[in-house]
């Protein structure tokens, strides 16, 4: 992965643990936006995409 200076602030609220993974609510603090996530994979991808936007 190329070096980058992606930074950001998130609040992860894990509300359930079903299907061998986590579900809950992710808050992107920098933009004051909230989204629900259904798995850790979805959580990671949402954060990664948001960080790419922060980098711009």
């Amino acid at each position, binding site marked *: 992965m190329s070096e980058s200076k992606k930074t950001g602030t998130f609040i992860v609220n894990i509300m359930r643990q079903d*299907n061998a993974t986590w579900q809950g609510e992710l808050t992107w603090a920098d933009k004051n936006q909230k989204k629900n*996530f259904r798995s850790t994979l979805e959580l990671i991808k*949402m954060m990664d995409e948001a960080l790419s936007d922060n980098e711009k």
Partner: protein
Amino acid sequence: MLAINWSIPSFANVCIDECSNGEVAGRFYHQYDKKPVHFTCFMELLRQMDDLFESIHYPQATARQRSFLKEQAQAAVQQELTPVWQSREFGGERGTRATFYIMVKGRANASWQGDVVWVEREIKKTFRSAMELMVLMDNATK
């Protein structure tokens, strides 16, 4: 002898070459390119494998990825990829630290389900989520 489904389109041969500070680095091979895909952490591995599944539309995801940036996630355009490896050749590469065959058979609950084989130990496990898969691999590489 373990039963391995070599013909599954999403088959990934994950070669771990480095483990440090709880992270892994290496490369993975799939059927559609002779060149490996390199990764420097678990997250990058997950993201690149998921990109592959999206491009070949296999396994079909039962849910669209949620996003802060896009109101409605766009489905990736399915690419017509042709396997370039002969038979099981892409399973021949080995990682310096560990090698895993990952066969993702389903993408339900916004995650992955399938089987993983720790090649060096000839152990096969089923995983119900990407998180479970990461924990299995992390425990194996400690």
